[in-house]
């Protein structure tokens, strides 16, 4: 909702004592209605502009909106530019009655509309503007669940190879052979980022292999909550590998929340301990290349992945394998090899299919509409556009 509300630099409140009064017609038919699908805190006011409000040579300089609360005195609440014909009033209370009138101003006179009926903003329980979004989300979620269920019942699902993930076992094996550590960096964001969550779930798979091979894993982190979650994860992996005694809390340690302080420390660890394998998975920012280059200079195999498009080129340049965007989120499902996890990847493909179909149809139809202008096609096109338009 874009409301053309902009302050007029010179409010015409103080009427200038010009010799000739410029008479203008008042705005007409003001109607106030509830603004739909909110928590009862806004109303929308519409009116027909004054007939003297013309794009060229109009006499109306501005509109003032007046509001009366519960029948009290009307107070000015906004000034709008000429041509305005609606106003959204926000921050209202659902237990108060509001009535409005609109005043048009010329350089030295004013003309007021009638007062609207008095109404209360309504509180709605469901935002029907989001119905299409809800349905599409439902289809994708349902297909994810459907494929998970199918997989649970034992149907084989094909998932193509993802190069970076095929290399995980090999990379861990290499560290084991060389007797060096594996460094796992989960990005610098906290647990309120799904990328960190994805990194932790991958850590679950990696640490399981690590526990089996009896390799050393080292995980400096930048957030205390990530430290807690990572410890739980690694501990569980060691338990399920049947070696709880080999687990040690010091595998994960907190360094500092500060982005570059963390980088300084991790760089130090890299050059001093020379890990054989480095995982850089999660939310990365400017530090991505500092870490990846330092890791590269100590000769480690590096597997990186992030959903930050700006950092991906650096990982591609400096790491051996890079998981691009969606692949990062697919990784834990893929590595687990569990059918039900793989099922969720199939669900994602359904989502992609919907997106591709919509794009294909949309572009085709809008091109035809732009060239030929057929009404039916325009109607279908408008429908597709409306389905994918998100209004809050």
């Amino acid at each position, binding site marked *: *909702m*874009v*409301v*053309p*509300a*902009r*302050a007029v*630099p010179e409010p015409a409140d103080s009427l200038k004592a010009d010799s000739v009064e410029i008479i203008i017609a008042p705005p007409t038919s003001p109607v106030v209605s509830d603004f739909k699908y909110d928590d009862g805190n806004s109303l929308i006011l519409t009116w027909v502009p004054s007939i003297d409000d013309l794009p060229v040579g109009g006499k109306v300089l501005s509109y003032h909106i007046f509001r009366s609360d519960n029948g009290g005195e009307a107070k000015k609440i*906004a000034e709008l530019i000429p041509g305005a014909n609606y106003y959204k009033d*926000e*921050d209202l209370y659902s237990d108060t009655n509001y009535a409005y009138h609109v005043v048009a101003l010329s350089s030295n006179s004013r003309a007021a509309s009638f007062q609207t009926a008095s109404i209360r903003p309504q509180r709605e329980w469901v935002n029907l503007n989001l119905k299409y979004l809800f349905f599409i989300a439902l289809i994708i979620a349902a297909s994810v669940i459907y494929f998970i269920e199918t997989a649970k019942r034992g149907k084989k699902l094909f998932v193509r190879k993802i190069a970076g993930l095929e290399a995980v076992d090999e990379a861990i094996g290499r560290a084991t052979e060389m007797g060096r550590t594996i460094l796992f960096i989960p990005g610098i964001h906290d647990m309120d980022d799904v990328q960190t969550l994805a990194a932790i779930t991958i850590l679950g798979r990696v640490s399981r292999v690590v526990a089996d091979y009896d390799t050393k894993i080292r995980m400096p982190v930048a957030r205390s909550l990530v430290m807690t979650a990572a410890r739980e994860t690694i501990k569980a992996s060691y338990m399920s590998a049947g070696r709880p005694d080999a687990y040690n809390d010091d595998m994960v340690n907190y360094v500092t929340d500060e982005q*570059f302080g963390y980088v300084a420390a991790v760089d130090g660890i890299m050059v001093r301990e020379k890990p054989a394998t480095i995982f850089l998975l999660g939310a990365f*920012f*400017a530090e991505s290349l500092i870490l990846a280059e330092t890791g*590269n*200079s100590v*000769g480690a195999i590096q597997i990186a992945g992030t959903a930050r*498009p*700006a950092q991906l080129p650096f990982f591609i340049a400096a790491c051996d394998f890079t998981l691009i965007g969606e692949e990062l989120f697919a990784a834990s499902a893929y590595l687990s090899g569990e059918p039900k996890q793989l099922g969720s990847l199939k669900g994602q493909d359904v989502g992609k299919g919907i997106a591709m179909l919509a794009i294909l149809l949309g572009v085709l139809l809008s091109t035809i509409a732009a060239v030929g202008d057929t009404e039916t096609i325009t109607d279908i096109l408008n429908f597709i556009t409306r389905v994918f338009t998100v209004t*809050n």
Partner: protein
Amino acid sequence: MSTKAKEILAITIIVIFCLIFYIRKVNGGEGILFSSLVAWLVIGAMVLSLVWILILTIRGRLISRRVVFIYVGIALALPLFMPFTQRIPISPEVRALYNSVETLKPGSKVLISFDFDPPSAPELQPMAESFIRLCFERDLKVIIMGLWPQGPQQANMALEKVLSDEKMKVKNLQYGEDYVNLGFQTGNEFVIQRMGSSFESMFPTDYRGTAYDSLPLVRNVKNFSNIDYSFNLSAGFPGSVEWVQIAVDRYGVQLGLGNTAVQAPQMYTYLNAGQITGILGGMNGGAEFEFLCKYKGKATKFMLSQSFAHMIVIAFIIIGNVAFFLGGRKSALKKS
């Protein structure tokens, strides 16, 4: 001589060098500027040594990272001593931003949000300075805020710099009437959202602790509808994306962006969609804007270093590729 001895020697030389220059500065020594002959000689030497490296590489000797580092250091530092200036072509998105500020009537209220911290200051501070200067020159009122804790501090530094100018002193600009710094508020994008209904609820006082009501400039500013233009200097989250999604999309604010060069590419989508009036991207954008404002600030000064650094990076990419094609693909693929 052992490596250790060499290192100690090098450090000693550096310390002595620094001490000499520091004492010189304290005693009022002026800065150094090369004559154009010296500058050209330096450039020539750099080019020659690059050619030599190219020859070495073709012969199969890949240079180490440290050599690359040294070149970058030189390419960034030496141009600051050189007396050259370069012609700056103005990109449309920068001109659009300039025009949108220029068409504002005197007395219009401009909201500037400082959403960055010192590490990004080299890119964004020059933009901040020239933008504030432009506002004051055109008699616009400036309201400053920050979504990053260090933002308002950066704003104060920029204000101090702009106001110390003779031209500005004549205008006798008053805090609270011509400009105001509302300070920082936690809450990221929620701050913008809540500002949509009331500025005062988010900034009950300015950064000095003066109550919102007693600041003449903002006393009548209730929410975004009282703002004529806003400018966002951003280095990440929270920043431009949030301003566009909330202030522009929901409240119809007119917005211009000043971004780090890393962030700028993502903002072009918004520019194409007409959601923002223009972008200053990176130091380059800053220099272009300074040119339009007819003011030679730090962005213009740093641009030469910038261009040199680019050339060095490109030179090394070329050297790397030449080595790759001529020096046998397999050996070049091995990690240097």
